[in-house]
């Protein structure tokens, strides 16, 4: 009889525990983060703001790599001009293209200063890129996007124009 009592107490306790867990578990399950409006960006959650900021940061790093490659290209191009000069070929178009290319890189670097300043101070974000001020973070995204986009187009057109002149020269002298 005593064993039966103990068994019944255990079953009752187990039932109470199971019911209490089934009630509590949804509270622990993360509720969806509310998307609230950010000036100039529409409705965004804090996570979306953070991810957008990190993507802008990746874009900035990508531009850094492009500018580094642009300087390497310029150096190799100058060597090619020297070689072609010694061969007695006309390199005037190449020299003009290289001067324009360097000018575009300089312009792009000046346009990056604003983005650099914003990424250095991280307005609206803490050191781990978590949002601490939604409005300020949104404004930072808008400002840095504007800067990065202008740099992007400067680099894009510089590479396109440079490649056009270079391809014409190659078609004339190399791929005959």
């Amino acid at each position: 009889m005593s064993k039966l009592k103990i068994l019944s107490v255990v079953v009752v306790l187990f039932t109470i525990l199971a019911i209490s867990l089934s009630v509590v578990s949804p509270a622990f399950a993360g509720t969806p983060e509310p998307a609230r409006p950010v000036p100039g960006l529409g409705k965004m959650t804090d996570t979306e703001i953070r991810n957008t900021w990190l993507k802008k940061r990746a874009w900035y790093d990508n531009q850094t790599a492009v500018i580094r490659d642009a300087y390497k290209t310029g150096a190799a191009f100058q060597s090619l001009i020297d070689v072609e000069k010694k061969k007695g070929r006309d390199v005037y178009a190449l020299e003009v293209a290289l001067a324009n290319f360097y000018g575009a890189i300089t312009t792009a670097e000046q346009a990056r200063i604003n983005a650099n300043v914003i990424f250095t101070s991280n307005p609206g974000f803490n050191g781990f890129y978590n949002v601490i001020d939604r409005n300020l973070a949104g404004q930072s995204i808008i400002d840095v996007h504007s800067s990065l986009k202008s740099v992007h187009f400067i680099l894009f057109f510089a590479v396109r124009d440079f490649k056009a002149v270079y391809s014409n020269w190659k078609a004339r002298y190399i791929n005959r």
Partner: protein
Amino acid sequence: MKNLMLVSAVLVALALLSACQNDQSANPYPTLPLPQVRSEKLPTATPTNTPEPVTPDALQPAATTASQLQAWPTLDDESYLILQIDALLDKMERELNSVDTRLKP
């Protein structure tokens, strides 16, 4: 009574174990015999098989023509630079085209 027998059995077992341990501790790690190392002298060169010193001939200045001197810059330099520039331009184009330029990607 049963407990007494059990205790005595355990004591006997312990005594046996300690006896075995004592036997093993007499010569726990028998050492291997010492290796037999051959002690021989290395062969040395004798005067009969030593090579005779050879004096190299005096270097003659290479006859280079003016056309050979003017051959620089070579085509290899040009090809190398063109390959390098092509690769860098392609890489920059790929990086620039792979970017999502929307405000909210």
